[in-house]
């Protein structure tokens, strides 16, 4: 008799999601599907609006990635207006963007991953949360996380009016310059961020890599998935969050594509499956091959682990050293899904170092922040690395500059099919003979938590927390057992 286990909604995940795990007659995992709430009508909502409104609208798509949406949208707007931002404006945008990477990555590591690795994957659920993390690491570390977060958000606020939903974003530039007094404060934040980034990496190595149980988990087959990888790289193939060329490597690390994001439709295909609202992406030139891993797959991953695999190094010296250590430990390409966490912390260091570089750049306080030499094109593609992976905004307008077409490809969309596969693999290891225990279930959830998937919505109706409901059903859909927690 086939059984279905439903984890709905998933815990400690951004937004609203559901995972269905189907068991076969023996109670072993046959399949797993990752689903999200469908948000409808975004294109219809945008059509007819002036293109300049888009950078202010798109941060509201998602309460998790507002700054990346704002930045991708602003870059698409540059394209529509046929204009390049001035060097100072680009520097200020990068200032904002690095601040976002620092803030977001630490919140993920300490709030989301922390409970699994610091408190323990099979620990008492009542302690496996941020409060449990703070009990373990000490209040001063907790305060430091909050302080770094506050200061980096202050930078976003300075440049783009307010986090979490930035309002800045003008074609050809930014809306305000940076003063020398503001530079001093930014410099302090940057210095603090570099110091904290180094601490966080050391903490990860001590708490996770030196713990044999955790290291075995990271290296084990349950959390290994062999796919292609895609990320933005700069002209020397180093990591770049703000701009660059999209590079794709195969499961063995060989470069198979290197393209301008404007040509994304030639390389990225979108596939509709009946069980999900997400249009699953795949490498178009390979064709859709279904939910499979290995050399024959056409699925690719994005985000920190993908960036680690795709780049030929980091753009800053301290991050480069950390990257080299990760390469020595895991090799390349690394298919270990839990290594997303390690890669994420190295990226936070690069973002902090780059913030420091920008804080000391004389150009930062230049008043030349807007290029108004417009050459209207009516079409724009903006591509950035969101914290969770490649983000593409594509707009077209009529001759008056009113939106006529919108297409977005978001990080969780690229990762959706691999997330389903990762959950299936983990579930196959940890659920056997129909036996489902809380600790084991969390080990399954860890597979998708590593991706830090945002489920595409800023809906947060009460109760404002995510209860967990597990339904075990027979093949006719009858519920034979329900386990509820946090409801």
């Amino acid at each position, binding site marked *: 008799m086939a059984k279905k286990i439903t984890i709905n*909604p998933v*815990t*400690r*995940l*951004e*937004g609203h999601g559901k995972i269905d795990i189907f068991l076969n007659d023996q109670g072993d995992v046959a399949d797993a599907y990752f689903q999200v*709430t*469908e*948000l*409808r*009508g*975004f294109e*219809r*909502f945008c059509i007819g609006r002036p293109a300049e409104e888009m950078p202010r*609208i798109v941060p*509201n798509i998602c*309460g*998790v990635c507002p700054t990346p949406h704002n930045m991708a949208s602003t870059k698409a707007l540059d394209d529509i207006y046929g204009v390049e931002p001035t060097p100072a404006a680009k520097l200020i945008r990068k200032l904002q963007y690095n601040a976002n990477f620092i803030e977001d990555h630490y*919140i*993920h590591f*300490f*709030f*989301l991953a922390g409970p699994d690795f610091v408190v323990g994957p099979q620990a008492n*659920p*009542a302690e*496996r*949360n*941020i*409060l449990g993390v*703070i009990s373990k690491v000490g*209040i001063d570390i*907790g*305060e430091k996380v*909050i302080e770094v*977060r*506050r200061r980096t958000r202050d930078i976003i606020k300075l440049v783009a009016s307010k986090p*979490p*939903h930035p309002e800045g974003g003008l074609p050809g530039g930014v809306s305000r310059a940076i003063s020398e007094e503001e530079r001093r404060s930014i410099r302090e934040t940057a210095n603090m961020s570099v110091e904290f980034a180094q601490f966080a990496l050391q903490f990860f190595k001590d708490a996770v890599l030196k713990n044999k149980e955790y290291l075995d988990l990271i290296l084990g087959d349950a959390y290994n998935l062999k796919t292609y990888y895609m990320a933005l790289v700069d002209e020397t193939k180093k990591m770049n969050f703000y701009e660059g060329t999209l590079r794709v490597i195969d499961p063995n690390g060989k470069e198979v594509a290197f393209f301008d994001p404007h040509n994304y439709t030639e390389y990225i295909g979108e596939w509709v499956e009946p069980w999900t609202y997400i249009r699953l992406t795949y490498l178009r030139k390979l064709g859709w091959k279904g939910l499979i891993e290995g050399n024959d797959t056409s699925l690719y991953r994005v985000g920190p682990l993908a960036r680690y695999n795709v780049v030929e190094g980091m753009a800053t010296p301290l991050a480069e050293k950390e990257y080299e250590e990760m390469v020595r430990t895991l090799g390349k390409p690394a298919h270990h899904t839990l290594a997303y966490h390690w890669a994420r912390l190295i990226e936070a260091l690069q973002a902090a170092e780059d913030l420091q570089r920008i804080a000391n750049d004389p150009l930062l306080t230049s008043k030349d922040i807007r290029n108004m030499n417009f050459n209207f094109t009516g079409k724009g593609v903006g591509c950035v690395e969101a914290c969770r992976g490649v983000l593409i905004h594509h707009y077209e307008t009529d001759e008056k500059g009113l939106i006529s077409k919108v297409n977005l490809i978001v990080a969780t969309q690229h990762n959706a099919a691999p997330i389903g596969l990762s959950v299936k693999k983990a579930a196959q290891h940890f659920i056997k003979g129909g036996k489902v225990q809380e600790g084991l279930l969390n080990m399954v959830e860890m597979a998708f938590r590593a991706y830090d998937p945002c489920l595409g*919505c*800023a*809906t*947060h*109706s*009460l*109760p*404002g*927390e*995510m*209860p*967990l409901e597990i339904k075990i059903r027979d093949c006719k859909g009858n519920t034979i057992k329900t386990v509820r*927690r*946090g*409801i």
Partner: protein
Amino acid sequence: MSKKTLVIGLGNPILSDDGAGIYVAREIKKRCKGLSHIAVIEASLGGIGLLDVMAGYERVIIVDSIKTEENTPGKVYRLRVEDLGDTTYPCGPHFLDIRTAVELGTKFGYSMPGTIDIYAIEITDNTTFSENLTPEVEKGIPLLAEQIIEDLKEKDELLTPSSL
């Protein structure tokens, strides 16, 4: 005069009824212009962000949307923080539940509000991009704003000007 009471309208203003809390806050702001000790903000954020905005206030009133099995759009619920479940399963770092946010703030030594009142209006649609509310929810917005203002007035009688 420092502001002691904060009204937070929560939601996403471009996701249909999800923005209900924001619309209620706007209505309160419009009607409470003269009350200098009451701050009214709108926010599309959850617990960890709420921690930032709540710290330092004595009383916080949160206005949000809610979906229940009863499914009666426009109906108002009064909730306490304790009604929102325990802190075992916070839903995400960006949408940390209110109770965890308060506990976290207290741990960090922030001055967290002594009283948090939650008003929630039952909604229908929070998955369609739109700046319009569904009809029953729209009707409920001024009524809930009025109810909150009345409750504020009642409480403010206990709050003498000299204590502000």
